């Protein structure tokens, strides 16, 4: 591919941008590894009913004849105390974890971004102060405590868990976008857009926001890890995914009681959590490089 040719159409420009982005990303071998692992996990989770050996074990299923079996060829990760295949449950468990991460990010990031943009760009000082102080209040409460309180008030299930975590996640994005926006506020290209007569929304969304995308995406990948950990922690103490559904945190909790003899019941779910978080974190580095504006 002649990488040096000038670009002659909008479509070609998009293709070149993507290709260039991938080039910058792929200079980090660990990031590529993380991406690979994540893709495998996501596909596995999506196709769980079709690829797991014992999909019915992910629900109410017991078979005490096959309980507490160590890892073997028929049960890759062994079985738990009621005879369910740990491997299949882990794959299904990924579904809940990933769903949690996606929902929380989708709910919390857009409002955070919008508030951050407004707070950073507005010339009216009181709006800026109001938004940032509200943000501070939310940030002052420890996430686990707030999540506990909310899920304890309502009934403990995945949905409530998702909403509770979303509520405390948006302030981080607000702050991030606020800091980028204030630093860009007085750049000449923003002034030029104002002087030309572009409307405020246009300036915020099309001028300022594209310059925030890098830090935002990098933070999202790191946050996926945090959210999954938080979800697993809540499940660990019984406030998340309820049995018999296979939450990874729940599985770690249940299996912990069987340590160290029947180690496979805890260790594999724990490793699964580690794998997904690690892969997100590794991707984060590559993303940061991908979005860096490089001058030649």
């Amino acid at each position, binding site marked *: 591919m002649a990488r040096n040719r000038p*670009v002659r159409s909008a479509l*070609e420009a998009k293709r070149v941008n993507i290709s260039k982005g991938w080039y910058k990303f792929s200079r980090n071998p660990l990031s590529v590894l993380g991406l690979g692992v994540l893709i495998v996990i996501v596909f596995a989770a999506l196709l769980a009913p079709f690829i797991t050996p014992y999909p019915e074990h992910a629900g109410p299923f017991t078979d005490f004849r096959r309980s507490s079996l160590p890892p073997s060829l028929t049960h890759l990760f062994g079985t738990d105390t009621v005879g369910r295949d740990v491997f299949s449950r882990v794959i299904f468990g990924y579904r809940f974890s990933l769903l949690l991460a996606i929902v929380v990010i989708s709910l919390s990031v857009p409002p955070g971004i919008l508030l951050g943009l407004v707070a950073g760009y507005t010339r009216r000082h009181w709006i800026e102060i109001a938004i940032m102080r509200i943000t501070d209040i939310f940030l002052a409460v420890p996430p686990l405590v707030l999540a506990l309180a909310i899920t304890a008030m309502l009934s403990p299930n995945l949905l409530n868990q998702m909403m509770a975590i979303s509520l405390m996640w948006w302030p981080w994005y607000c702050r991030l976008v606020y800091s980028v926006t204030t630093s860009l506020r007085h750049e*000449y*290209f923003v002034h*030029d857009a104002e*002087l030309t007569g*572009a409307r405020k929304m246009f300036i915020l969304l099309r001028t300022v926001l594209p310059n925030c995308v890098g830090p935002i995406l990098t933070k999202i990948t790191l946050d996926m890890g945090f959210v999954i950990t938080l979800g697993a922690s809540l499940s660990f103490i019984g406030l998340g995914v309820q049995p018999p559904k296979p939450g990874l945190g729940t599985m770690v909790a249940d299996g912990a009681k069987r340590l160290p003899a029947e180690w496979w019941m805890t260790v594999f779910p724990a490793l699964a959590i580690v794998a997904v978080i690690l892969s997100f974190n590794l991707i984060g580095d590559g993303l940061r490089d991908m979005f860096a504006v490089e001058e030649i």
Partner: protein
Amino acid sequence: MKGPILTVENLKKYFFTKQGTVKAVDRVSFSVIQGETFGLVGESGSGKTTIAHTIVGIYAPSGGAALFKGKNIGVDSSRRSIDLKKDIRIVFQDPGSSLNPRWSIKQILDLPLRVHSANAGPERLERVRELLSMVELPPEEYLYKYPPSMGGGEKQMVAIARALATNPSFVALDEPTSALDVSVQAKIINLLMGLQEKLHLTYLFITHDLSLMRNMATRVAIMYLGKICEVAPTVAFFQRPFHPYTRMLLSSIQVISDQEEELKPKKIISRGEIPSPVNVPPGCSFHLRCPERMDICRRVDPVMVEHETGHFVRCHLYPDRSGRQPTDA
């Protein structure tokens, strides 16, 4: 005889900071004649950029008046009419930050067209190509380029094309070539001068490069700490500078030939630094560094006087003999 297109009278722009009030522009008055290139020269802290930003509408002035084609422009851009925004444009100092690094050149040049013309996409694209050709950047090569992959000179040419996209009558050029090499500078200056003639533009040209100013401007004004020290037609400014600061500045420039050395005023060793604009010295703001200071300079701020026809200076060495009110330049 063309009349003034822009008149600025006792213009003030003060910034209020925790350390004190910064009088960036402190009672500045001048007029710009239609079609001319009015040069504004000064070092950092002189206020030249602030004046340009105020005229263009980034700020509203803190006091004084500014009239453009007879209409009041003493407000910031959010309060200006769309026609005014079309008519007064600016090319910024730093090509690196005047173009959005995430936008393609096509998007950058399309924005003013979207705001100001009623044309649809294809017509605007045609106009974008026209603009790129006008600044001698081949459209096929540049339409989809991004600023980070372009050199400073190319970026500045895009900035110029962007400024001219709305067919303005007045363009403020804030150090358009200061960050660029001499050969690129030559190209851009030639371009600007050609376009000025073709499109009947009036320029407010700001630079600290006096040699460049000598060849660009019809009239030159020199500023120090927010006030104008001297205004004159170019030749008079360079051949017969009156103000000690003008002479100091002229004697400091690095020239490349002996003939030019001869033209410089006798070497005035520049002393001291420019004081902080929060701490403007009393009396004449230049007196601390002035080799010719007198007692009165410490106490009284001089007024602008027309010492020769068309040649104005604000200095106690050239007192106002007629008892007239301070004149506008």
